[in-house]
């Protein structure tokens, strides 16, 4: 699903990634850990083609993203769901519209939109808050809307960049359970975090980056 081959990323004179090699298979759940500035976010940004590698190859679902023409990037992103630390919801739109606007832009019929949005909101257990606005929701609920939006188009890959970074431990666990449930249905999940307790609790594959290098890659691993 995701393959990094000798990836180097340089910003100015700063080497953010230094010869990174990764292979994440279909259906895996992977924690990407490391301290701030270690290179986690750079790996994420390269995965959803917000950046191009300075050298090396990033292949997502068989597509070399560096060679992908600019106008084809949206097609790549439609095959993945992205969850952000700060939720990134549209404050003036209710829960339904926040989830629906992605598939609306794809030209789906209203009936199909209703079906998919309802399905996604049931997965995140928010079906009863369809009409609420982000300001009326708790942090955990807002993140659940973010997850529903990410999975509404049924992407084979879900990328979550510190999805529990702004949440308390109990809510973080709830979010993690939802993400695990999504993974159990066959979606590959790549989750960047530095939440030690969560990583230790779920015992998934853990890839640790430090100073732009992969220093550890363990199945059923813990934070350290």
């Amino acid at each position: 699903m995701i393959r990094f081959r000798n990836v180097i990323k340089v910003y100015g004179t700063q080497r953010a990634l230094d010869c990174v090699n990764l292979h994440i298979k279909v259906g895996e759940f992977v924690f990407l850990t490391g301290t701030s500035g270690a290179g986690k976010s750079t790996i994420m940004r390269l995965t959803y083609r917000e950046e191009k590698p300075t050298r090396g190859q990033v292949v997502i679902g068989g597509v070399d993203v560096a060679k992908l023409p600019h106008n084809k990037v949206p097609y790549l992103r439609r095959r993945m769901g992205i969850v952000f630390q700060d939720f990134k919801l549209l404050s003036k739109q209710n829960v339904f519209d926040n989830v629906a606007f992605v598939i609306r832009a794809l030209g789906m019929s209203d009936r199909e939109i209703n079906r998919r949005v309802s399905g996604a909101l049931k997965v995140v257990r928010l079906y009863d808050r369809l009409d609420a606005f982000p300001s009326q929701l708790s942090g955990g609920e807002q993140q659940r809307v973010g997850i529903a939006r990410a999975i509404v188009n049924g992407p084979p890959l879900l990328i979550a960049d510190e999805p529990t970074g702004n949440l308390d431990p109990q809510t973080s666990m709830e979010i993690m359970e939802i993400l695990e449930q999504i993974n159990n249905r066959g979606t590959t999940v790549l989750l960047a975090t530095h939440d030690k307790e969560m990583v230790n609790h779920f015992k998934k594959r853990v890839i640790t980056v430090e100073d732009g290098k992969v220093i550890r890659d363990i199945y059923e691993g813990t934070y350290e």
Partner: protein
Amino acid sequence: MVHIDADIRIISRIISETVKGIKRTQWMNLVIITTMAAILSIFGCLFRTSLVISSFIEHLGDSMEVSVYLKSGYNAEKAKLEILKTGDVNEIKIIHKEKAWSELKQEMNVPDIKNPLPDTLRLKIKEQKKIESVIHMVKNMKSVENIQYAKDIVEKIIKVGNVTNVATVIVLLILGGLTLSIINNTIHLVIQSRSEEIEIMRMMGIGNWYIRAPYILQGAFYGFCGSLLAIVPLRILESYLFSMTEFFNMGETPNYLNLVITSLMLMGVIVGSLGSYISVRKYLRI
């Protein structure tokens, strides 16, 4: 069929996004549309006036005659055919010297001498711009003795016509640039105020044109509404121009108002969408 349905839905959703965007711009809409209307009405009134001046000049040109005096011994019919070949002359009237002499004798008490008058051709030129070239050609004909026409008036008419055309083009360029810049800045502000939303759409893989099109349509909407408002001062000007053309007895004037209104609307919509397109290209990072 499924694709066509999806495309139609996408178009209708883009339009609905445009409407939402316009609603969100609130009172700013009014400021932009009235500014656009003011600029477009200046352009419309100038354009309309320049059309009247051109029509007036054409009218003067039409009524202007060139008299061509032939050398004796040359056939007037042959000379007429030769001049007609240029294609720039509407009508040639031959005044034979015998007829002219007898008319002159009737009108004035002239002594009984040999007819001194030459055969004369009276030319009506198709366009006043062509007068100079026709005269140059006719002057070089073997059969032509002399030519008479109101040279000063012709030159002035051509000058006024040229100045009007150049002024209209300059005004068009200046106002076009001004309109472009207003729309460009407005859409820039709209894009800035919705930057977070655009960022989310981008990350979610929403197509570039789905994101961009509502802003371009919003610009076109401002241009269209501005041009509709600009019709009001144009209609007032029209009534003044009508009384002027009647005063100068210019006869039936062509229906220029429709032409000006169509040009205004086209200019409004094209410049409006172009201004927002430039802004979208510059400020909307996808």
